[in-house]
């Protein structure tokens, strides 16, 4: 059958960009479909160089507008007046949540998706993670292990550029790194104390997709730490800075924006997808595009939504849902502030520049022996800093003395944020809302997600350990929390089309193909079978590159 394209990639975010790059570089004619608007690299980053006093609300943003139009998005730490144009309007893009639950679904509908605003932390999963489901029986056993993905992690890291320090920590495998950004004086001190007192723990600089060395037309980081505005230096990995130019260079890419994919078209006779039906959100025009394969990279929950919306007589519960498990076992990370401590030391030392990464303390719990009353583990991210002017909001004083006291750098503080693994549970799931529709008449995605007792126990342990470590380092702990924030708060929502070898207990196979529809690949976070406790984007990228390789091989072998 002749098709318009060899492949259609739905979404242009972190994994969509990767799929487009890999498939075009392997010679396929690819259509990449982005639901949001065009944002050109550089010229599209309209707030990048503005100072607070050049913004109408000084960077704080219009609270009245946010209450009305950005009720969820504005809770995101990276959401500011500078970055609000990289987040969706909640009023225009509704979703529903199950009664009694709460879920912050943070999204960016634009070219590049959340690759523009992501936290850039780039970690490999280990065999502790790939083996976790099998070991304790939660979720579906991963069909792959670390050795399967390691070469693809290499491939991705080489291309995107990750700065970091190899540490030889089994729970956080080392990768291919540009030189690390340095720890500051307090972090270095804390590292020494913690590693001496707890030899199984390691404090290392966050492995981040910010360049410390120039790379293929991309500049090294300028230490502004305003990444989410967009970086015209191309110093962090985004679709615009990295994968899109690579894909465009092949001459094989067709990119359309402002176009939402409404369904994946399926031919029951051939048991293959034929392409996608799309809606141009600017013109209202609907049409179809055809291709030999379809990659779903819409972002984990939107990929689920699209599959659920693509039901047919053959698949009444959603495309590829013969197992009945599509949309289930969704995850996030349970996260909260493990501890904040104030330090009296090093008052004569400070830093220069804005380092766009913090520190990480990789998982140390429940690795080779069970400790405590919870399964799996958690890790910490955070860092040390000297306070600046915002401390003036919470300190007493007015007048000349107050102004003078606020002039210098404030005291040192160190923060450890806990990220606990989210167990894959069948009850945490996505469905189509039977009662609510969006402006185009499509059923809303309904999110039913709650953290469980295991996550709460893990965070309680994390709070105790974070406090103990910062206290040992000489800090005075002023805050320690152990209850998770609302679902979605880690912005690591994933799952729903979990990988597995068994079509009855999973939705996608070891090559990220739908078990039921061999020419549809799901390689964003939807395919995750477990969450681990590290930031997942690097794994999504590696899975995507691996899936693209498999897809092209299968095409050449005429197996799909």
């Amino acid at each position, binding site marked *: 059958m002749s098709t318009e394209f060899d492949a259609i990639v739905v979404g242009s975010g972190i994994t969509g960009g990767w799929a487009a790059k890999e498939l075009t570089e392997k010679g396929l004619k690819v259509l990449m479909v982005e639901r949001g608007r065009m944002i050109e690299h550089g010229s599209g980053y309209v707030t990048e160089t503005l100072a*607070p006093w050049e913004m109408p609300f000084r960077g704080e943003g219009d609270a009245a507008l946010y209450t009305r139009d950005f009720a969820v998005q504005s809770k995101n730490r990276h959401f500011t007046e500078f970055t609000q144009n990289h987040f969706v309007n909640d009023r225009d893009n509704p979703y529903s949540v199950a009664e009694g639950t709460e879920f912050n679904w943070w999204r960016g509908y634009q070219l590049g998706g959340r690759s523009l605003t992501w936290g850039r932390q780039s970690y490999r999963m280990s065999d502790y993670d790939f083996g976790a489901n099998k070991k304790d029986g939660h979720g579906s056993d991963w069909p792959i292990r670390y050795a399967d993905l390691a070469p693809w992690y290499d491939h991705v890291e080489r291309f995107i550029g990750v700065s970091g320090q190899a540490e030889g920590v089994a729970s956080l495998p080392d990768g291919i790194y540009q030189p690390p950004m340095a720890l500051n004086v307090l972090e270095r001190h804390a590292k020494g104390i913690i590693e001496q007192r707890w030899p199984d723990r390691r404090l290392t600089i966050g492995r981040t997709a910010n360049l410390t060395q120039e790379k293929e037309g991309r500049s090294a980081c300028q230490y502004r730490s305003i990444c989410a505005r967009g970086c015209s230096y191309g110093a962090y990995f985004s679709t615009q800075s990295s994968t899109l130019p690579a894909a465009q260079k092949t001459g094989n890419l067709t990119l359309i924006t402002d176009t939402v994919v409404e369904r994946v078209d399926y031919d029951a006779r051939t048991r293959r997808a034929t392409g996608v039906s799309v809606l141009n959100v600017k013109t209202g025009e609907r049409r179809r595009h055809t291709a030999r394969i379809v990659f779903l990279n819409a972002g984990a929950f939107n990929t689920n939504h699209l599959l659920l919306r693509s039901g047919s007589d053959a698949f009444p519960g959603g495309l590829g849902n013969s197992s009945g498990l599509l949309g289930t076992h969704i995850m996030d990370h349970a996260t909260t502030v493990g501890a904040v401590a104030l330090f009296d030391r090093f008052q004569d030392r400070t830093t220069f520049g804005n380092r766009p990464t913090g520190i990480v303390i990789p998982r140390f719990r429940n690795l080779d022996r069970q400790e405590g009353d919870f399964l799996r583990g958690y890790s910490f991210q955070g860092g040390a800093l000297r306070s600046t002017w915002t401390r003036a909001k919470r300190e007493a004083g*007015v007048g000349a003395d107050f102004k003078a006291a606020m002039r*210098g750098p404030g005291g040192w503080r160190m923060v450890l944020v806990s990220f606990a693994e989210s167990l894959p549970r069948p009850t945490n799931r996505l469905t189509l809302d039977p009662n609510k529709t969006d402006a185009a008449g499509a059923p809303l995605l309904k999110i039913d997600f709650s953290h469980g007792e295991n996550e709460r126990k893990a965070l309680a342990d994390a709070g105790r350990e974070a406090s103990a470590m910062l206290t040992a380092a000489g800090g005075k702990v002023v805050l320690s929390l152990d209850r998770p924030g609302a679902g979605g708060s880690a912005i690591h929502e994933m799952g729903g089309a979990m990988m597995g070898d068994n079509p009855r207990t999973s939705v996608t196979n070891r090559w990220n193909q739908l078990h039921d529809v061999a020419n549809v690949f799901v390689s964003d976070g939807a395919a995750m079978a477990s969450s681990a406790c590290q930031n997942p984007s690097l794994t999504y990228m590696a899975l995507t590159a691996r899936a693209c390789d498999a897809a092209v091989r299968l095409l050449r072998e005429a197996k799909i």
Partner: protein
Amino acid sequence: MDHGNRGGSGAGRRQFLMGLAAAGAALTPATLWAQARSGAGAASPGLMPSQRALLDRVCDLTIPDSDTPGALAAGVPAFVALALAHGLEGAGAPVPAARFTGGAGPDGATVLDWLTFELDLKTGGAFLAAAPTSQVQALAALDGAAYVPGGERSPWRVLKGLIVTGYYTSEAGASRELQYELVPGHWDPDVPVGPHARAWSNDWTAVDFG
């Protein structure tokens, strides 16, 4: 936005309060509140001249000129007015009656209503007409009460937060009082703090977590 006088009788109210003070009349929270309220434009999106004058004075007292411009010179009152109109940092929420000394505040009171009332009360009826030393003492007392245990919910914390934000995000506050460097260009993890060191206004991590 329009900061014009849409509310009416600010000047008359001030004169009345000054008259009361001059006559040594007994000032109770209730009478003060009645007077403050008579000039308040709670329904108005702009500020009355009396409120603008109060805001100017309070900004100036909070962060005065020194070897760098203070909050008034940096245009902070206009930011605070905008912030109040748009509810930044929770400033749009009405102030509960219990926050008013004497507990007599009415429904729908704004933070500026509250500020007017409290400062007038502390200066014998007319804060703006009071001697500078009395104004300083009144504001210092208000501030002091907001930063002791039990003062966490003082509306002054909201207002002070807006003044502080307005100042340190102004060009003068951010780049002259403190330091601002859009493109540091490199990272140095350990540098000495000199005796005249100024904090970085654009250390965004410290802005968020500091």
